[in-house]
């Protein structure tokens, strides 16, 4: 079963800073929904554990994440491949970073994923909704991280 994902999100950081954040495994571990472990396998390659709940189905995935096609600070492709108790998933998304004036950026993403196993059975409508929700959580977490960074920086300066 294939899932299409597409969207954009405005973030209050300069493009170069956004690029840095999206390449920091610690940040990724924090903002990827359900992610509980990250281990670097090599440059731009990580092993990741995730726990996810999709509708009535919940379970753990172990998988690999790889970043490729890097064009700093404009674009990269994030590929995820995992399998676990509730099935497998395999997908990739292209992230496009666009500067929006001085201190802001627009992040566009477009990708697709293939899922199989029990999780495929919760239904296309639910899965699309869940994919959107997960993407939302990803950006919310990123925004929160930025916000926390700011506050921490502000506190240090003061």
């Amino acid at each position, binding site marked *: 079963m294939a899932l299409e994902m597409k969207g954009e999100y405005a973030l209050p950081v300069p493009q170069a800073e956004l690029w840095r954040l999206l390449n920091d495994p610690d940040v990724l571990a924090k903002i990827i929904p359900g992610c509980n472990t990250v281990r670097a396998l090599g440059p731009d390659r990580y092993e990741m554990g995730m726990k996810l709940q999709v509708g009535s189905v919940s379970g753990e995935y172990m998988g690999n994440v790889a970043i490729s096609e890097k064009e700093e600070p404009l674009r990269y492709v994030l590929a995820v491949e995992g*399998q676990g108790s509730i099935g497998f998933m395999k997908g990739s998304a292209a992230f496009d970073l666009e500067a929006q004036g001085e201190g802001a950026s627009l992040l566009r993403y477009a990708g697709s994923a*293939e899922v*199989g*196993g029990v999780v*495929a059975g*919760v239904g*296309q409508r639910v899965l699309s909704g869940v994919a959107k929700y997960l993407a939302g959580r990803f950006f919310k977490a990123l925004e929160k991280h930025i916000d926390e960074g700011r506050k921490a920086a502000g506190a240090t300066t003061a």
Partner: protein
Amino acid sequence: MSEFRYIGTKRRTKEDPRFVTGHGRFVADIALPGMKHVALVTSPHASARIKAIRTDAALALSGVHCVLTGEELCAATDPLLVGVDAPKVTRYPLAHGVVRYAGEWVAAVVADSRALAEDAAEKIAVDYEPTEYVLDPEKAVESGSAQVHPLHGSNVLYRRKFVWGPVEEDFARAEHRLATRVRWGRSATVPIETFGVAAQWDPGQQLLDVWASIQMPKFPDQTARALRLPGNAVRVHFDVDVGGSFGVKRGIKHTVLVGYLAKKLGFPVRLIEDRLENMRGGDMHGPDRIFDIEVAFDSDGTVHALKIRALDDVGAYAGRSPLQLGKPVGAIIGPYQIHSVEYEPISVMTNKTPQEAVRGFGQSPTNYALESAMDLVARQLGMDRIVLRKKNFIRKDQFPYLIPSGTTYDSGDYHVVLDKALATANYPALVAARDAARELGRLAGIGIASCLEPSGGNSSFEPLFNPKNETTTWMDSCLVRVDLSGAITGVMNTSSAGQGHETLVATVLGEVLERDPDTIRVVHADSLNALPSNSPVGSRMAIMLGGAAAGAANRIKAALLAIAAHNLKRDLSELEYRDGNVSVRGVASKTLSWAQLVEIAHRKFHQLPEGMEPGLQAKFVWEVPTGGALPTADGRIQMYPCFSFEAHVVLVEIDPATGQPRIVRYVCGHDCGVMISPDIVHGMTYGGIAHGIGAALYEKFAYSDNGQLESQSFMDYLIPSALEVPSISIVDHCTPSPHTTFGQKGSGEAGYLGAPAAIACAINDALQPLGASIAELPMTPLAIWTRMQAGNATSKEKSPNK
């Protein structure tokens, strides 16, 4: 007045009180001391090599007793039975080495509770290497396709071209020919109760006890063989209520798995599927067929010959599923006088959940295809659909009627049944309602379908489709006991899944022995106590169990008469049997009562006629009437003995904005001979029509391009609810069968066999003004809406030229 006292009368069924008051005993009610529970690890891939299975994390959990994988199970058991000659298509309860469909069982976990077993199952890590798969049956038949079972050498399980009669000559002679393709979608029955089985091994007796939710021929034998046990080391308890089956409750792989675990572990083990396991891996999908049909006919509507190619996608393994292409051979021309037929059934494997028997065993798809072809003939000739059908119907005076494929239809009165249905529907008013709706810009259509329900299942498609199988009997039996108190007990020898067999047996015994059926108890023997039975499949029990019960009751009656003759010192011809008492005709004082006769039989050997067994019991084992022969070399065979008939008349409206159909009127004319219990027949027919509405409009096991079942739950696999099932009128007619004890025919598949054809016909009638049509089930609102848009566009393009 009816010639019967109890048969055909409206009486409460024997089973209802226990179901209505919550006293049914289903497999989930079986609580064995120390029983443990099974959960399953299933494949997420349509096709993959299993590289490794890591079970340590699961086994480390407290309360987890065992993780079983295919490696051990396949070495310790024998493959499950394949219905056709394909010995390399091996199938075991658990996958070993490779998985062949998403949902296939890979490992089983046994734990203290089902919840714990599920948690442990999640901790089992399986490394898969996905491999090439095939999902499209038309690609699967090609030689270059990915192979589901490479050792078999092809995905084709069965293929044969039967030619019955001068097909080519008839085609050459006919004034017209047409060709069409229709497709029956992958649906099934989805009973409320999923499959479940509990098993217990007794090491002292070396005996495996099985309680299961089953409806399966030769189930104890198959279980024992797969487990490499003697037949008498497996005892199946047939007194477990089955919460719906309609064909699919076969559960052989479940039972072999649970039986193996119970024996290995030494404590009772139970597996009850959850809905996801049932839908993905329960191996209960129904036929999934592409029909290519050619028809040869004349301008006056006479249909001379048919060519039917039926490609059936049975999924990744084969049990009896290929045989579902065989049953239609016995009614291949439907209710019509068609002179010659070419039939090419092709059973093909794909990487999908396997197919199992579904109500009608392949007959409903074939009826849909045949009726669709008849509609096209009418359309091409500009002839009324009813007139066309009546023109071709076999007439009442033509029975017994030999059809080209070698089966003789027993009896029927098709013209009258269709007329009765049309009268009940008030057909002219129905036409007026349809036309009025159309005037108002709405879409409305009338569907007409007529079809046969072959009944009395004799399984003669087994030798037809597998030359190594010489099965020519498909008997059923009944044992009747009259105890010392004079109470009657009927013993049947299989389980029931809501068909009302206890009512059937009690009614028949009451009828023959002239005793009140309410006082008669009917029990289900376990398989070690049972007489031969082939289970309630193929609409056979009214005929076969009813016939066996009557046979046994007649033996009891004969014994009572003999005892009376001996004690009254009269000739049998002078005696009269009434209500269980025997009198000398015309001499009321010379009577031996039921109680006296029973007393003699049980206690007074000195008063028994010479040579008579003491006690009062009789068994009767009955062979299917008209059965008993192997097929001819050209594949002609007498299939089932009895042929019920149904005629459906339906009015459907379609919401022009959404494509959602609504059934406005539904009438089913039905002739299943003498009805033993009219309430049960009507209940079956209502349920069958509801099921047919599902197949026609809603139900589909849809697969994604990567082989994932997309409709795994009732959110996506839509079954008709009370909102989608209209009020249904059933009109009875009775043409007795000459082959059965009381003139009864079967009706277990009634309604379902004709409803999809009728509804499809109505939808296409509704779409006709748009120049649109659909030739694929289910006709979902989206499919209808899509055709409506295409139809609208076509009509608009055409309009400037008008």
